[in-house]
């Protein structure tokens, strides 16, 4: 039996995490096929076929796949799943929304958000916001798995030439209608894949003060993150939230500014390679995971930090 990967894309390009999901799926079985469901998604299908780890691409197209509605996607994948032992996709909001719908239809108990493939049926996954790791073995004949993209390296993206087969679309699900998507466009690196992340918390005190975070991020070519407290307070939009119910990030450098470090926030960043915390409360839990902690008033320290960064003439991009 082989593995079916569900590709995430925007019809033209593959979303970056598809490459991480391919790596994870290939560790379950090297006979790896990928399905791409969309509308006029030939360009993205071609890119999928160029991934050397992918042995076959299945392309399914219809107008009602334009907006990635899970109710439309699930029946196609459930039908294709007849021929596969595993269905895999990323544990981001795309995969979280979609995979359980597939799993329930296949009468499979899904394994969510794995961080390691131990064998074809055994996986490691964090529970309790990453405060425990569970080793779990799926006993279902068909396995539905979502993978934590930041725990797997992206696969090679060129050199392959897998055949592309077309499959029949399924009927449209009429009870769900897409209305609109408000994507926040930015020239910055994406939060999920950035080398450096600079995050602000409730200590920023206002949305206006977040420009300090922006200045540091500009200097370091970093993505901007935030704690849930900062998002709840309206300082910054939800797509910046790092934590148990937000995004999980694993940058080379994570700078937490004015973030106390609730366990729910630590769940989203504590695997970062180097962690810096700037906080005036020396007892703040963020210091327990920080490689470098600076106990200081952020409104004094951050402008100084920006000045010091200005003095360095070799900022790595």
């Amino acid at each position: 039996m082989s593995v079916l990967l569900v590709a995430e894309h925007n019809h033209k390009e593959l979303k970056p995490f598809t490459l991480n999901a391919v790596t994870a799926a290939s560790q379950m079985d090297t006979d790896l096929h990928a399905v791409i469901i969309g509308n006029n998604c030939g360009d993205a299908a071609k890119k999928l076929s160029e991934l050397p780890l992918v042995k076959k691409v299945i392309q399914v197209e219809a107008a009602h796949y334009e907006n990635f509605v899970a109710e439309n996607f699930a029946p196609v994948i459930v039908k294709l799943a007849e021929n596969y032992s595993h269905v895999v996709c990323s544990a981001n909001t795309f995969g979280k929304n979609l995979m359980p719908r597939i799993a329930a239809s296949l009468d499979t108990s899904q394994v969510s958000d794995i961080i390691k493939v131990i064998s074809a049926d055994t996986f490691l996954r964090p529970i309790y916001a990453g405060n425990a790791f569970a080793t779990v073995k799926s006993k279902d004949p068909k396995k539905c798995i979502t993978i934590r993209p930041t725990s797997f390296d992206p696969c090679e993206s060129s050199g392959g030439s897998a055949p592309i087969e077309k499959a029949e679309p399924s009927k449209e699900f009429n009870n769900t209608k897409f209305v609109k998507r408000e994507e926040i466009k930015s020239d910055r690196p994406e939060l999920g894949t950035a080398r450096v992340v600079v995050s602000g918390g409730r200590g920023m005190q206002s949305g206006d003060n977040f420009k300090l975070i922006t200045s540091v991020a500009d200097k370091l070519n970093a993505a901007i993150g935030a704690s849930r407290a900062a998002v709840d307070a309206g300082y910054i939009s939800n797509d910046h939230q790092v934590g148990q119910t937000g995004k999980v990030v694993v940058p080379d450098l994570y700078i937490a500014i004015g973030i106390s470090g609730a366990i729910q926030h630590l769940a989203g960043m504590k695997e970062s390679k180097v962690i810096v915390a700037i906080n005036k409360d020396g007892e703040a839990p963020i210091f327990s995971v920080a490689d470098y902690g600076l106990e200081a008033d952020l409104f004094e320290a951050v402008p100084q930090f920006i000045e010091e960064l200005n003095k360095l003439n070799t900022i790595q991009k």
Partner: protein
Amino acid sequence: MKILVAVKRVIDYNVQIRVKEDNTGVVTDNVKMSTNPPDDNAIEEAVKIKESGTATEVIAVSVGEEKAQETVRKALAVGADRGILIKADGILEPLAVSKLLQKIVEKEKPDLVFMGKQAIDDDCNQTGQMLSALLNWPQATFASKIEIKDKKLEVTREIDEGLETIEINIPAIVTCDLRLNEPRYASLPNIMKAKKKPIEQINASDLGVDTSPRIEQIKVEEPPKRKAGIKVKSVAELVQKLKNEAKVI
């Protein structure tokens, strides 16, 4: 309109959990338990819809051991009209829970089912979507805003890229995000009143659902600990360390 809200009893979100020494799970004895936080948002939203006159009844349902009754009782104290406890012991996977909830939906025929988007213990994020698949109903996951328009809901969803709005026909499932609303606290008079509200108890085994786990939990371990770091005295020292020691800038 009738709204069914599923609530789960979990270890309180403020508790630092401990892994059992025999690696079979986490310590739950003498640990503070609470309602799963986004389930509080689900109850709040249902009660608000009832207060606006659009819904006529809010039913809180929980699946789990006898003590999960406290979680149902708490939902009654903030405004749910009656409760249902489906009694089941041991590990219940989201697939089993969604099958049990399906039985309750078939019996109660609600127009809407609300629940939190994710439970903070197993972090699965599955039950709402699974129930929605089993019923072949529309689903609106990670909801941060819900507007009722006749027989439709317009729901704003928090997605990785920002916000998405969808329109779904009733009956439907909504899984709630933490920013959907501000859950209220139960007042003392309402806690007293909740004691008189009915909670129907049903044994999971009487619902004809096989709840045995499909996933074997081989072991539960502490995650690798991070090495303790250092405190720097000044911004200049911090920058020097980042540049010369960690070599990340």
